[in-house]
Each structure stands twice: as structure tokens, then as C-alpha cells.
């Protein structure tokens, strides 16, 4: 139950911050509830429930000497890598444009998660980015950023 100890503590701390933030928004009165009324109530309940989870985990931890182990860190780096890549994509999408950003994203994912050969990676990334642009921009009329290719009519 070590996981519950950590999550219980985290949510309890979060609920205190949320309650303080809600309090500053003005709670109002019972007759005329203010903007902070509901978030304050929800934060208090979250605090109570997370405290229960924390206590339950603490109790179980004491009874069973060997707590639930932290999950195997085997695949974590891959998940973190995908997340960082997505965040990077979001940050550079408007600057470099959809086609280039998508091409780079696909290249990175295909080369790192389960590494493919360079020709396979380049071909899939090139056609993948172009095809998705064609489907969404041309056929479905989405407004995707042109970025660096703006001058080429994209």
C-alpha cells in the first residue's frame, strides 16, 4: 500500500492548497454562496477522503511489513520519452508548422520507441505527415499552422 501512502499524502496537500485558493475567492454566505463556495467544499471533501486513504495505507503498512512495491520501472523511460516528445511538439508546432513538426515527431517516435531502420522511418514519417495534412487541412478544413512553409503556400 506504499502507493496509497504517496497518493494520499499528495492529494491531501493538494486539497489544502485548493481550499486556500477557494477561500481567497470569497465563500459568500449560505444565503448567497460566493465563487469559492463549491470549490472550497470539494477541496475539503477531497482532503477528508485523501486522509482516509492515507490512514488506511498507513494501517495496512504497519500490519503487513512488506508493502506493495513501487511498480516495475521497466517501461517508464519509453512513456516519459513519448510525453516529452508530445510536449516538444506542442511547443514548436506553431513556429515550425504542422508538416515539419509532425515529420520530426514521427521520426523521433519511430527511431526511439522500437527503433526502425532509417529508410522505413523517413518514408513512414514523410507520407504520414503529408497524408494527415491532406486529410485534415484539405478535406476536413482544419486550420493547421503552416509555420516555416507558409511561403510555399501550405
Amino acid at each position, binding site marked *: 500500500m506504499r502507493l496509497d501512502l504517496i497518493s494520499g499524502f499528495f492529494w491531501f496537500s493538494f486539497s489544502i492548497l485548493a481550499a486556500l485558493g477557494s477561500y481567497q475567492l470569497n465563500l459568500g454566505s449560505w*444565503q448567497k454562496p460566493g465563487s469559492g463556495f*463549491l470549490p472550497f467544499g470539494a477541496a475539503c471533501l477531497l482532503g477528508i477522503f485523501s486522509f482516509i486513504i492515507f490512514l488506511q495505507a498507513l494501517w495496512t503498512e504497519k500490519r503487513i511489513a512488506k508493502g506493495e512495491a513501487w511498480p516495475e520501472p521497466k517501461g517508464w523511460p519509453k512513456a516519459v520519452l513519448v510525453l516529452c516528445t508530445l510536449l516538444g511538439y*506542442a511547443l514548436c508546432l506553431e513556429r515550425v508548422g504542422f508538416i515539419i513538426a509532425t515529420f520530426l515527431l514521427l521520426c523521433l517516435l519511430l527511431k526511439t520507441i522500437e527503433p526502425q531502420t532509417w529508410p522505413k522511418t523517413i518514408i513512414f514519417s514523410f507520407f*504520414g505527415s503529408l497524408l494527415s495534412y491532406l486529410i485534415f487541412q484539405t478535406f476536413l*478544413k482544419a486550420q493547421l499552422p503552416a509555420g516555416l512553409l507558409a511561403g510555399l503556400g501550405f
Partner: protein
Amino acid sequence: MESIGGLIYGLGIALKPINLIYCFLGVTMGTLVGVLPGLGPSAAISLLIPTTFHVSPESAFIMLAGIYYGAMYGGSTTSILVNIPGEAASVVTCLDGYQMARQGRAGPALGISAFGSFIGGTLSIVGLMVAAPPLASIALQFGPPEYFSLMILGLTILSYLSGGSMVKSFMMACLGILLGCVGMDTINGVNRFTYGIPELIDGIGIVPVVMGLFGISEVLLNVEQSLKQEVFVKRVKNLLPNWRDWMDSIGAIIRGSFLGFFLGVLPGGGAIVASFASYAVEKKVSKHPEQFGKGAIAGVAGPETANNAATGGAFIPLFTLGIPANAVMAVLLGALMIHGLRTGPLLMKEAPGIFWGTVASMYVGNIILLILNLPLIPVWVKILKVPYVFLFPAILIFCLIGAYSLNNSIVEVVLMVLFGLIGYLFKKFHYEGAPFIMALILGPMLEDGLRQSLILSNGSFGIFVARPLSLGLILISAFLVFSPIFLRKRPTAGLKDND
């Protein structure tokens, strides 16, 4: 008689060539979305909403609804052939469907899930057609206290039916309500927790949250496990179930239809809960419960029927009360609003074409799906044979474009990625995403109901128990909260863990 007249009117709309095309497109895309693991109907509908801006509201809603029930058909294919649920509501189908495929009975498993889906889907449309108009009349009597109590009941039901810890589910509901408060307070005009980000003034969008929590996090988990797809393709033959298969499944199909429909109606119920509940019921009533998990056809027929039956039921609170029963309905509610339609009990009077057109198109769509589904299985199998290493980047691109297209804003993309991380951690720490999403959706309505009720009653909470309907809803919620103390075990407690 009103229903028959309405249906005839609806068929006039649904059978227009343009609407038939939209219905066909919707159910086909829905099936594809169902087949592909990691891309759910909410994400697909969100992605396609901008494409409906230039068409009539009827055509738009016919297509978007088609994606929803089409996805329920498609989800079983992946569960049976690859042992990976294509859609969250088909998780439980993996248990017996994949075992049947391993025993060389993939054909009957796919066949019975298609027929069960058709029967459940069709019966639930009959239910929707019959129940919605009178319910809309009753809903006109709903005031803020009734709305508040109904939403509390919805959140309680979802927490009660969730597979894990009830306390954790309540925590997720509180977190959802809290995040639902982000944005401008509609009563006082005060910005709450926006931290100077203009995109947050309208609140946290449901679409990036759903895509992140269910789409991105699923991809992260699959990537972590180095997913190996083993498609049982050579043995897909004899799609029509034999007499024995029908005899073993018919009871499950009938029970699944009713259970799915009623769980679909409840806010917080929906297709996922319906499929798990149906599996639990079938295992309980079976003369051979030991066969469940080893290839029992009733374990495929029941859940697949139930998840389709839930789709029809889920439209009832949306059309009659303007309350979404699940995340997909919340996205559809957004689509209705974008098309300038006022949701709630007056929708059926003000825009009868939307209601009856959708109902009639669902009959048509279910027939299209039954005809399409079985012959198209080789096509879906080919798609499933594409290695996951090529499939997941495509799913990610769909989600990224979908989030960006909402407001052409990077903030939505960052939010989606952030909620992808949160969803991933939820799964690692055994927290359920469903109560969180529902609370996020219902939060603003719940707040309006609470604050308006307190203003009306001059600060007295007695208003929630003074009105009979509100009292009834509160009593049911209280019973569900306290029943675990009296009952030894909740019906669904630990279901997901055990299975």
C-alpha cells in the same frame, strides 16, 4: 401513437440521401475507431465536430451519433482477435472472446457479438423512442434542487459501480468538481483558477481532458509494455453461430439488452459499466460459471449486447434533461450547442428533427452495421496486423490534431498532454478516471443547481428534502453511499482486479 408518428417523421429525415451518407460515414468511422486500440469515440467525435460546421444539425448529429454506436460494434473485433480492447467498453469481451479465438472459434465469437450488438442496439432505440417523450414532460417540472440531487445521484452511482475503492472514486469526483470550477463564475463573473491564461476563462475543455485521460494515457501504457499483437486471423471462419451457440447466448442477449439500457440511462452508468455488470450477471446465473474466462460464448454475447444497449439509453438524459450520461454524451452536448440548439426538455419541441431524425437513423445505422460488420472483418484484421509501433504514432497524431483544431490553440494540446500524464499516473496508482470525467462535466451544472437552490431557499439545505422528487434522489444516493456498511460486498467491487 406519438412515438409511431415521430418515428415516421424521423425516417423521412434519416432516409434522405445526404443523411444516409452521413449515417454510413459515421458508423464506418465509428467501427474503425472501435477497432483501433487507444482511440475512443469521444476523441473521434471531438476530432470530427469541426467538419460538421457546414452541414445541417440533423446530418451532423446523425453522423456523430453513428460514431458512438459504431464504436461499440468495432470494439469487440480487437478484443476477440488480439486480446486488446479496441474500446473501453469491450475490455470484458477479451476474457472469453480471445479464448474462443484461441480454440478456433473466432468466427462464432465475432458473429454472436455482431448479432447481440444489433439486438441490444435495436431494443434500446425502441426504449429511447418510448421513454424519452414522457420523460421530457416530467423533466419540465425539474427545478434547481432536482437537478442538483440528480447529479449527486449520478456521481454516487458511478462511484458505487466503479471496480476499485469507493473512497478513491469519491476523491476523483471531488477533484473533477474542483477542476470543473476553473474558469469564469457565471453568476459573479469572477475568474477562478485561470492564472491569467485566457483559454481557461471558458473552463477546462472536456475534449482535451478525455483525449488525454483515455487516449494518450492508453498509448503510454501500451508503449511501456512493448505491445505484441497476435492476430488469430487464419481461423476466422463460420461467422454464423450455430444452434447451440444461439441457445447458450439468447438469455445473455436478452438480459444484456435490458441491463445495458437501464445502466445507460443513469448518469454515470454507460457502456463500460453495462458490459462489466452484464458479465458479472451472466457468470452468476450460468449453470457452468467455471467456463467463464475459458471461452464461454455467453461471456461474449452478454457484455457486447449490453454495451450497445447502453448507447440508446445514454441518449435519454441528454435529450430529456440536457444532462450528459457519460463523456461521449458531453461531447455530443457540446456539438448540439455549437449548432445553436438549446438542450434540455424543450429540445424535442424546438428541434424535433434532431431527436426523431437521430432515433430513426439509429435503426438504419444498426442495420448498416450488421450488414457491414461481418464482411468487413478481413479489412479490420488487416488494419490490426499493422504493428503497434506504426499504429500508435498515428493515434497520437489524430489526438494532437483534434486537440489543436478545437480552438487553434496550443494550450488545448498542452492540456491534453498534461491529462495524458495524469491519466497514466491514475492507472499506476489505481485511481478511476470515469468519476473524475463525470464530475468535471457535471460540476458546473451541479454548482448552478446548488447555488440557485440556496438562494431560492434563503440558505436552507431543507429545500433538497422538502421536494419529493429531490428527496427520492437524495435517499437513493444515501442508500448507495452507506450500503457497503450493511452489504458485505458491492456487486462490481474488485471485478476489474479479479478478471
